[in-house]
């Protein structure tokens, strides 16, 4: 670094090559600084453009909308549906993801573990529209045939399974299962990473005291990886909140707020509602959809910020 700097008070002896290299340095650092600032500007632009385009919604005459709801009335069921679907997906995916991560990090034979990890990563790379058509064509009929009637008959006293059970399978639960499959690789990848980082000495100390393998995992691996798993789960939640196509294809939406997950009347999600309505919308309708997009932006922003904060507090078990 210092070698490119001129010696103090030595201005007269600057060689031409040194001059060009100084110039090159200034240009190069300028370009990279510019690129960094462009990122900040781009993000500000995202927020600004969305806000400008969303603004007309609030001043508009309510009769211009179909259904003439106020914006809050319009977005409430969508917001509920978004959070409900993402929550259900996380509920299904988290235990499985932790199980798979443990299997790959501690149980599977070393050589197979690599290809298993590859398989799970592949799951993450499959486009969401493919998950969507698989969900509606394969999963929905199976669930509608063999699972939903059973749930309605045997657990119908719970509000979640009150029914009437959908015969098409285009329900909140089908959507949640597909979302769970989609966020599983994210949670698995992060959990596997922290589980593998467990200090070898912790594990061996536990085993040396006579612990079985599971006891070792409970005593050494899980406490060490807990905050990593939580932040992975939050990132998965963020992805589930914003997931669009799979939900848009599978869900049969209605303008309701309900916790019933097996009927044909489901609250839609913000993202899926935009995808379904946007291509046919015009005028203030477009502005209203963009306003809902802004709401989604803030919700995912908060969830992701929480995930970062948890991840940054460090892997708590490391000190204990």
């Amino acid at each position, binding site marked *: 670094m210092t070698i490119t700097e001129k010696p103090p008070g030595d201005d007269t002896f600057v060689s031409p090559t040194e001059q060009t290299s100084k110039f090159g340095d200034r*240009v*190069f650092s300028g370009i990279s600084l510019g690129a960094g600032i462009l*990122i900040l500007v*781009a993000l500000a632009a995202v927020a600004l453009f*969305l806000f*400008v385009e969303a603004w007309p919604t609030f001043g508009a005459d309510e009769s211009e909308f179909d259904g003439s709801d106020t914006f809050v009335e319009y977005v409430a069921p969508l917001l509920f549906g978004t959070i409900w679907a993402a929550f259900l997906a996380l509920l299904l995916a988290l235990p499985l993801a932790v199980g798979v991560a443990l299997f790959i990090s501690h149980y599977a034979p070393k050589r197979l573990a690599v290809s298993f990890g590859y398989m799970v990563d592949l799951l993450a790379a499959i486009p969401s*529209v493919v998950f969507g058509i698989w969900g509606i064509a394969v999963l929905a009929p199976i669930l509608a045939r063999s699972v939903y009637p059973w749930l309605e008959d045997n657990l119908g006293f719970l509000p979640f399974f009150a029914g009437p059970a959908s015969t098409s399978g285009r329900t909140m639960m089908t959507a949640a299962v597909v979302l769970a499959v989609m966020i599983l690789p994210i949670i698995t990848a992060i959990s596997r990473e922290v589980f593998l980082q467990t200090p070898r000495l912790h594990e061996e100390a536990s085993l040396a005291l006579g612990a*079985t393998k599971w006891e070792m995992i409970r005593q050494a691996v899980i406490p060490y990886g807990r905050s990593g798993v939580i932040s992975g789960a939050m990132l998965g939640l963020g992805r589930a909140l914003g997931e669009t196509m799979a939900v848009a294809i599978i869900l049969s939406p209605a303008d309701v707020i309900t916790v019933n997950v097996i009927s044909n009347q489901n609250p839609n999600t913000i993202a899926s509602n935009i995808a379904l309505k946007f291509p046919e919308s*015009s005028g203030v309708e477009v502005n209203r959809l963009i306003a809902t997009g802004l709401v989604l932006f803030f919700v*995912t922003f908060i969830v992701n910020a929480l995930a970062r904060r948890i991840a940054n507090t460090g892997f708590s078990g490391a000190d204990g």
Partner: protein
Amino acid sequence: MTITEQPPTPVDGSSSITANQLGRAQLIGVAVAAVVVGALSWASSGEPNWARWIIVSLVTYCVSIYIASRVVEGPRKGVDRLMLAVVTSAFVVVALPLVSLIWTVVERGLPRFDTEFFTETMRSVVGEGGGIYHAIIGTLIVTGLATLMSVPVGLFTAIYLAEYGHGTKLAKAIQSMVDVMTGIPSIVAGLFAYAMFELLFGPGTRSGLAGAVALTVLMTPVVVRSAEEMLRLVPNELREASYALGVPKWKTIVKVVLPTAIAGIITGVVLAIARVIGETAPLLVTAGLAQGVNWNPFDGRMTTLPVFTYYQYVQPGIPPEAGQDRAWTAALVLIIIVMVLFTAARILSSVLKPKGLR
């Protein structure tokens, strides 16, 4: 590790060490019994139901191995065996949808996987026939433009973060904003691009370029993150050696740091492309759908492969089978593209390990 391994079971089984342990034969017996119970669960209905067979077998195995082990080996060993069974079952359960998805897409996609499918467009196609030529062109143009925009910005930002602004407030701000960008839902990126083009070019504008802008928003943070990580892996000794020879900093970066990290950076870019090439939602609201080839990204709607798949499935036309077949084949093409990119990235990262690093 050795502690969990079973000592070889003696033939007579009378050794005091192995007296209270389940032998291999017993374990296999429990597993076979569980598979039989699973098979019985669908036998009554007549036709094989693979998912139910596997799930019932797994549950039966978990329960019975716990009971057997608890009785013979005691509660601690019982829980240990139960958890092994549960964790392995979790993996099998997760593998089920992946296998089912790939099986379905290949089975239903193959019938239309022919030359016509890759050389025809959807212009004036009703019912059978038609292809994805226009969608492939659209995907190449949109993804290519997004790559052209995001790679330079992403790479230079990574250089700033790793080489220049290390530890400064601005660098920290940029880093956290990159994190925020990573979490932007894809549909919001699409809305942003739509809003931008509507403000610039009037309402209802749809173009390939708008789609590319949306994908750039999604792709740039991925490129920044992976490139920054790779630059940080370059050993400091290399930089110092270069400075010691009197090479200015920018030349050090161009001639020493970047060539060392280039394989990792390319891998990151390929993975970023694989991530955005399957994006549907942002292109649905920005690039839209067209029936023919559109070579001009600055004007008019442009079909991309994921959007094509979506519309062919939800609006298949009459009769619906032809459209849905096209949707499945397009899905198959998408999966093949993603897999090829993914595998290429893997091979690149393992073959072209960073030079100078061991």
